[in-house]
Each structure stands twice: as C-alpha cells, then as structure tokens.
C-alpha cells in the first residue's frame, strides 16, 4: 500500500492522468491488482467501471501477475512472415501454457505483442524486456530450461 500511495500522490486531479497512473501501477506491481484499482477509483473519483473500461481497452494492461521470466513474442508483420507463430507454438508446448498465461510455479509467462520495432532482425522475442533477435524454434529448448 505504501508503494501505491506514492503513485497516487502524483495525481493532480486531472482526467488525463488516469492512463499514466494505470501505467505506473502496472510498472510497480507488474499487473493491475484489483485493490489498487479500487483505491485509484477512490482517489480520482472516476468510477471503477470506467477505470476498468479504460484499462481493458488498451492492450498494455494485464490483470494477472507475470512470471519471473516474462516472455513476449513479436507478432508484427515482419516477425509473422519469418515464423513467429511457430515460436509461440514451440514455447506453448515447452511450457504447457497458452499465450496470455503463466506457469503454475510462476516461473514463466507468455504474451504475444505487436511490433517491437526490430523488424529488420525478425523474428524477435523478449525475455524480461531484453530482445532476442532472429530467434529460431529450435532455440526454445535451450532458452527455457524447464524446472519440473
């Protein structure tokens, strides 16, 4: 709550601050926890349903925690043409989770994202924000040593 209070303190009563506030909360917690949104609604006096309305509109926001290793696979055009679908397939089979899910031990989570701007080195994926370019399905085994 201390962390949340600090974020909410930056609010100056302007409607245009809602999205940046949501971004800060997500930055801090890795997702948007329910009670944080309730708190946000109280402070800003914007109804909870409106806040959810905004948060669900934008692809950036997530409502479940990420894994310790958060995998994002680019599905932009260049990466798609170069086989990002197979990368996702290979990861899903390896970790036995679907896109958007987290492994039960919270080690890995998988997300498909739009272009990350490295199209010239496609296909690209990221592990905790670090880009791996020209990734191949056969690298997946090595990149994701399974725990169980």
């Amino acid at each position, binding site marked *: 709550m201390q962390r949340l209070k600090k974020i909410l303190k930056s609010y100056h009563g302007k409607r245009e601050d809602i999205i940046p506030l949501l971004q800060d909360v997500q930055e801090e917690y890795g997702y948007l926890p329910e009670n944080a949104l309730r708190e946000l609604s109280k402070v800003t006096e914007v109804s909870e349903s409106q806040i959810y309305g905004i948060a669900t509109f934008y692809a950036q926001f997530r409502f479940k925690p990420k894994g310790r290793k958060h995998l994002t696979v680019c599905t*932009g055009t260049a990466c798609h043409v170069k086989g990002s679908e197979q990368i996702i397939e290979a990861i899903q089979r390896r970790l036995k989770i679907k896109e958007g899910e987290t492994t039960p031990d919270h080690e890995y989570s998988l997300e498909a994202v739009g*272009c990350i*701007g490295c199209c*010239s080195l496609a296909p690209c994926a990221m592990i905790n924000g670090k880009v791996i370019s020209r990734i191949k399905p056969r690298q*997946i085994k090595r990149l994701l040593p399974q725990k169980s």
Partner: protein
Amino acid sequence: MNFEKLVQKAKKEYYSIFRGEPPAILIGSATCGISAGANEITKVIEDEITRKNIEARIIPVGCIGSCYAEPIIGIFKNNKEGVFYGPVNKKLVKNIIKKNIIEDKVAKENILGTIQVKETGTRGSFFESDFMKLQSRRILRRCGLINPEDINHYLATGGYTGLLKTLEMGADEIIDTIKRSGLRGRGGAGFPTWLKWDLCRQSNSKEKYIICNADEGDPGAFMNRSLLEGDPHSVIEGILIGAHTIKAKKAYIYCRAEYPAALEKLEKAINDLDKIGLLDIEIVIKKGAGAFVCGEETALIASIEGRRGMPRTRPPFPTTKGLWGKPTVINNVETFAAISLIFQEGVEKFSSIGTESSKGTKTFSLVGDVKRTGLIEVPLGTTLRRVIFDIGGGIKNGGNLKAVQIGGPSGGCIPASMMDIEIDYDSLTSAGAIMGSGGLVVLSDDSCMVEIARYFLEFTQRESCGKCVPCRLGTQQMLLILDDIVQGNGNPEDVETLHEVAEAVKAASLCGLGQTAPNPVLTTLKYFREEYVEHVMNRRCPAAYCRELMHYFIDGKQCTGCMVCSKVCPGNAIVGVKDEVHFIDQEKCLKCGSCMDVCKEGAILKVPGPGGSIES
C-alpha cells in the same frame, strides 16, 4: 551564452570526434543495434581499452540504416576517414581494436565502408555502397553519426537554425514556405501540411495545441522509432516551429510504450533544450498504452484526454475542434523532421527532389525476405524495383520475389510484375495500396498471399475499437472466411462473399481503420485470385505455407540417419535411430521447419497438402 557562441563551441566539440585524436569509436546503439548485441560489444570495447590502456572515446549513436549488418562500429583515428565494420562480434571487435587503433591499420573483416564527417558534409565509400548509393539521406542525415543524447551534436550540425529563422518570420511566410516545399504528411494519408497548419492558424481561439503522432502502430514499420532514437531534436525542432506558427503554448508527443528508448531520448532532449533556454512552450510526453487505433487522430486525442481511444466522425476536424475541443495540429514524427529540414537547408533543396505531386524523400523500413533489411530513405518517385533489388540486394536465399506488402494493415500487396511502379502517394493508391507510414515487407515465393491477408484481418479485427458496426462485424466476418480458407474448409462461393463484405466495410466504416482494413484482402483478391481458388477448390496451399495444407516429409533416399534433425526438433516429432531413415510423426510436428534448416542432406521436403498420421 548567445546562440552563435553555443554553436561554435558545439562544432568544435563535435567535429573533433572525427579527427580521431584521441581515437573515437562509434557504436550503433539504437534498439535494433542493442538487440543485435551492441551492449555486449560496448562492454568488450570498454574492457579492452582499459586493459590495453588505450585512450579512446566511445560514442553511442543511433541506427545508420544498415540493420542487416548490426552490430555496427565505426573507428576514427588520426584524421583519417572512419572505417565502419559490421556485423561485429566480441572476437572481431578485439581484433579491430588491435589492428585499427593500436597498429593503425585497417582490419580486414566485415568492412562496410569508410565515412568522413566534416562541416562541409559527409562522404566516403560507405555512401557509395550498393545499399547507400541510390538513397538520399536527408531526414536521416544525422542518424548514426551523432550521439542523440548530446544536444551539442545537434547544434553542431545545423540544429535549431531552422527554428531561429522561423522566429523572424511571420506565420504567413512560414506557411507559404511549407506550401512551396510541397510537403505532404508522412503519417500515411499525405495531407498537405501547409493547409493543416493554415486551417488551425485561422481558427479563432486563444488556446491551441500541437501534437506529434509517434504511435507507429503499423506492425513491421520502425522508421519513427529510428528517427526518434537517432535524432530526437530534429522532431522537437519541427514541433517548436509548428507551435510558433499556430501560436500554441503546449505540445504533446504521443509515443508508444513499446519504444522505451525513444521515450527516454525524447525526455532527455526536451530537458537539454530547456537548459540552453530554447524551449519556450510546454512539451508533454504521453506514453501510448497499446492500441493501434490510437494512431488515428481523433482516437489519439481521446487517449490523451484520458479516455478509451475511440475515433469520432469528422468533421469537425481537429484543426477546428481537437484536444479539449480546441484547435489542434496533429502531424507525424517524420513530418516534423521534414519541417526542420526545410527551414535548416532551404525550401529549394527540399523540393528539388521527388515527383510533381510528391516532393522530397521518404523513409521506409525494408524488411521481410530481402537480403539487406534496414531503414532507408529514397526520393519519392523511386521505383519499387530499385528499392528491393538495388538497395535491398534482392531476395534472400536465392528465392523469387512474389509481392511487396506496403502500408501495413491499411495497405496492400503489390505483385512482382508491378515493380516498376513509382513510390508516391498517388501511384500507390491507384494500385490499391497506400503509402502508409512506410513499412515495406518483401515477400518471396515461400509466402502465401491468402495467409498474409488473413494475418492483417486478424490484426484489424482485434484492433477495431468496435464503435461502428461495419468495421466491428465486417472485419470479423472476413476473418472467419479467411480462417476457413487457410484451414482448407473454404467453399467456392467464399471468394465472392469476401469481396462483397470487403467493399461494404470499406464504404461504410467510421474511421480510417475500417475504411482501409479491407485493402489487404482486396489487393490479394485482385492480384492473386488463383491462390484463393487453389485453396478452396483443391484444398492446396501452392506456397506450402498454410499449416493445415502442408506438411514436412523426409525423403528416405536422401536421409542418412544422422539424427541432427531429431535433436533440434522442438516437438520431438522425428522418429528414428542412428544410421537408419527417420520419419516425422505428423501429429507431433509443429511445422516449424527447424529440421529443414539443419539437414545437410536436403532430405527434408515441404509438401503442399496435409500429411497422414505417420509417414512411411
């Protein structure tokens, strides 16, 4: 300090780098460079110069365009032309330091060319290379040759002289200059920039806004990112000129959250500008939150205002009723950089290149199955053939060109037979595509055009804001049909239905997203109809791309049983013992082609048509 003195000091500092005393090492450290390993390379260089006790300066720069050769470094020493190397790796870098810095020779490996940077301009063999010689780097002239985080590098290269010139001019003169330049908006639609500014200037309001659209939601395009990361001040200078012209006191830069490095560089640039006293308006950076439709101007405004990013009908246009209901000018990143260019170098120079209706140069991200991928800039009117074959070096791995996808989800596919088409706003539109922001995705014979259309429809269907029915339901309907077709469940009448729905969505949608979403379908139907027919009539994907309509097969005559393929298979789908012919368990096969990549015998084949459960 007055501006003249500031510039003198900046020049002294900046041009001393290229005299190479002490030696200077430039490292391409934009997002693309970093993803190719620039940070690791920087670390090796730092360690190496400490260990060998060498005096040298390391200068992080943006992307010089040759992404295919990243990571790239350039070494300047002893007043000689700098030598650029790429791609480099850790081992190579040590050798380059030894040869080029310690022994003062040129290392032989992976030389991209030489570059000389002087106050009078840049030259060198790098600019005469195949990748560079047909380009005309105007907007991108600083990218890769300045440290984007050092305002002195911008000032030394003519930065902010455009702004100072416009401060002496009246709005009439500024707008007239832009009109004479022939500049059209680089965000896609090609709207005349002068007209937009003039409309907003004429609006009667005390409060006005200027917005820089740095959303770049088009997947496969990264021109705006590269420019912001390589030369952020050039965009800010254009924004300031705009604010001065329309009399806005506040500007917003709306940049995608997916571009953290660009956001960082912008923030630094704004702070530095403030420190030297040139910032006379408030500039606010707004981080996008991941919605393609927010690139559309009215949706972008809604998003800045803290609402869901839904477009609204126009008119009224933002120039009369924009942010907070006030007159607002929205321009693309590259449009603002073009404005700085026009006022720094003169309108004649700008408009001396291009075509009658499309002046100047345009940046493109050249990606896909082309040999030299990267960020390019060519005069408008350059043919697609020149771009793909002369600049891009043709198709990778000896394949054939099938089509070029241009303009992203709003654009279309232009077939190989039409490569002599000149790239300008009007000729692309007449071919059914659009200029869009400048994503050029080169497709070889290995790509299925029906699948490409499906891919874009999946994208627009997901990104449709859902406010208007034609777009919400129409894109969904098209996607369902396309899904059926690529899975081999299409019916002969689907092709016609698809065409009808596409035309309806195009005609009836509220905003540009829906109006252009059918373009990938319409162009592929127009130029590649036989591929659709093959899918629905014969359940075959001629390119052997669609997963359900192709399989991998091991040719028993070629297979030596070396087990290389079975080791790499991520699905453990390859069955077989050493020295005996292997086969693929079709149930487990991911169809990723890893086996084909590694097989030295050429024993693995890609076959159109579905495979049985187990190959014999």
